[in-house]
């Protein structure tokens, strides 16, 4: 029999016992719905984590720091890769200076190299003041998705006295009860420790002895620290907290300044004190750290390796995300197994329904055989009935699962809002899950149909025709 004829006959047979077949199909639908609901939750959570990490630029960013050579390797788990020869080499570490920055920028697959500027300052908005972590933000962050959900706008230029504030920090700076967005357009005063270079010793000596020649290798050495203040206008307020939502990871901070402006502030950073205490061969400005943006996550591993070979400590979160993927694969597997249990129970319903159908349609099977149906035709007919139930149940189950997901998502949103937290999307039904769930339902149904179909096919036509 041709497929179309089989399908028509199967659909007709299913319509005949509409209540029983509908209940069986509903059983499949519930099974598929539970599978879809659980897997969608797993996929949604995975995407939520991926989005957060990607938004922070963690997938395509390599953090570069100078090596700190000690006989015990690198303290602090810097993540830089070193050869055994390098490990035993106690020469002074290579300085992360302008030359190194240019060299790194020239590596393949590098989009940009930005210095990491992070410092602690006091933010003041009368009458409140708060200690806050300030970070320089590159212009490229505007298009990287880092600022999703921000109210206001990005910096109007690279050198403007503007600031973007995290939601929680905005709340702390404002009077009680005011929305964080009330901070937009207001001016915040930042008080910070500024570095002021000392004049070179030769100039000092020249002043003391004007006729003495100054050597070419004599440069400014050391600096003094002075308090400084500057005003910045708030142009953007980010959602979430400075420890949770919004830009996280490398750049997590309470306030963000344009990177060029942050650099020009000459704020004292931890690395400055370290550099004063040790001999350095660096040329021009030296950096505490550089953030290197690669063309994509695929280029990060190679880039990390190249930078390590240049003599710097390089660190990315690629390894961490690999573990994350493994975790979610196992998580999804368990969710899938639990979701499939309901489908397994539903498959028993299919077997039961089809076995009942054989008993009820015994005579009909006999007639079909008398008219020329081969065992194969009868078997295929029952398979088609199982397959139709699986297909209809699968489609209905996906819709039901999607609906359950929407309800859970809505409930989560309401709960999170009541807790004063942002409500992320923890639900995702990708196409592969829709098609996979329907395919799985059909497959399970066909497998369930094997026994009844074989039994129907083996019926003796003479016996079947006598059946009343």
């Amino acid at each position, binding site marked *: 029999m*041709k497929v179309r004829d089989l399908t028509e006959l199967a659909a007709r047979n299913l319509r005949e016992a509409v209540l029983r077949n509908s209940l069986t199909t509903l059983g499949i639908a519930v099974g598929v719905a539970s599978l879809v609901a659980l897997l969608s939750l797993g996929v949604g959570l995975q995407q939520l984590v991926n989005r957060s990490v990607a938004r922070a630029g963690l997938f395509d960013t390599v953090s570069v720091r100078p090596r700190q050579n000690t006989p015990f390797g690198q303290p602090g788990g810097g993540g830089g890769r070193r050869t055994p020869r390098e490990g035993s080499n106690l020469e002074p570490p290579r300085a992360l200076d302008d030359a190194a920055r240019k060299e790194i920028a020239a590596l393949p697959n590098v989009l940009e190299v930005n210095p990491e500027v992070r410092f602690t300052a006091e933010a003041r908005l009368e009458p409140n003041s708060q200690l806050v972590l300030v970070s320089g933000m590159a212009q490229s962050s505007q298009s990287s998705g880092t600022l999703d959900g921000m109210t206001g706008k990005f910096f109007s230029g690279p050198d403007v006295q503007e600031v973007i504030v995290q939601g929680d920090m905005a709340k702390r700076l404002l009077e009680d009860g005011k929305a964080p967005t009330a901070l937009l357009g207001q001016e915040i005063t930042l008080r910070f420790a500024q570095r002021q270079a000392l004049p070179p010793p030769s100039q000092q000596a020249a002043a003391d002895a004007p006729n003495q020649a100054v050597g070419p290798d004599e440069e400014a050495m050391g600096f003094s620290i002075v308090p400084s203040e500057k005003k910045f206008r708030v142009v953007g307020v980010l959602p979430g907290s400075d420890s949770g939502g919004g830009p996280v990871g490398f750049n997590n901070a309470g306030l963000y300044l344009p990177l060029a402006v942050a650099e020009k502030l000459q704020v004292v950073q931890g690395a400055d004190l370290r550099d004063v205490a040790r001999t350095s061969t660096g040329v021009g400005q030296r950096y505490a750290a550089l953030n290197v943006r690669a063309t994509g996550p695929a280029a990060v591993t190679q880039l990390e390796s190249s930078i390590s070979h240049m003599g710097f400590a390089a660190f990315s979160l690629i390894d961490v995300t690999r573990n994350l993927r493994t975790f979610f694969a196992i998580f999804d597997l368990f969710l899938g197994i639990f979701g499939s249990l309901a489908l397994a129970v539903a498959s028993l319903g299919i077997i039961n329904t089809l076995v009942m159908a054989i008993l009820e349609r015994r005579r*009909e099977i006999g007639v*079909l055989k*008398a*008219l020329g149906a*081969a*065992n194969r035709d009868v078997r295929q007919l029952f398979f088609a009935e199982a397959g139709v139930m699986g297909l209809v149940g699968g489609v209905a189950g996906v819709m039901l699962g999607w609906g359950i997901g929407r309800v859970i998502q809505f409930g989560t949103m309401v709960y999170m809002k009541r807790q004063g937290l942002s409500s992320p999307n923890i639900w995702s039904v990708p196409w592969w899950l829709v098609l996979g769930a329907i395919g799985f339902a059909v497959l399970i149904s066909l497998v369930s149909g094997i026994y009844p179909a074989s039994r129907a096919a083996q019926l003796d036509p*003479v016996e079947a*025709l006598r059946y009343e």
Partner: protein
Amino acid sequence: MNVPENVISTNGFAIRTDRVSRHYKMGDALIRAVDQISLEVQTGEFLALLGASGSGKSTLLNLIAGLDRPSSGAILAQGRDLAGMSSEELASHRNQTIGIVFQSFQLLPRMTLEENVELPLRLAEVPRGERPERVREALDRVGLGARVKHRPPELSGGEQQRAAIARALVNRPMILLADEPTGNLDTKTGEEIMGLIAAIHRPPSGAGRTIVMVTHERALAERFADRIVTLSDGAISREERLR
């Protein structure tokens, strides 16, 4: 797949059984439903199998139809031995070579008449475009052209049996097997059905069909059949040529 109406078997016999037996085991007892029957049915002949209940006539008809397999012996239909056929080949034999009419009509009650009659065409994988005409032709032939959308429970017994005949003929088989076709009908309706079967056997124009009919009504057999074979206890007890 379709057999033309004018095909005639080469050996002159439409059906031939050679010492065919069908035995059943029931506990320790062996039931000889059909025992060593040798029979030849000429192409175009109308043979009536007569006998009391349990004489083995329906079992013999089932063996000829390929619904059952013999315990021993050979059955040749259109020159092919059914005993050596696979179940797929037997199914094809039932679909193409023979048409069967049952005492209790065996129409599927939830299908309309045209759907019932279309079933053998579906099984024969006849192109969908050809089917409506073939169905209409078969139903017109039995006088049910106006009842195509009716379901069997909406018809009288006689109409149902006519629909069953239309279904048996829709694939244009060479042999029509009828198992007590009038057994569930009143006398008048039975007469009508027999008239229809006779017309199929010898149509006003074109070639007729070989017919094997099981009945327990001697009068009907004598009136319409060319030959009567009487069975008793699974064996042939008497043979009468009438025409």
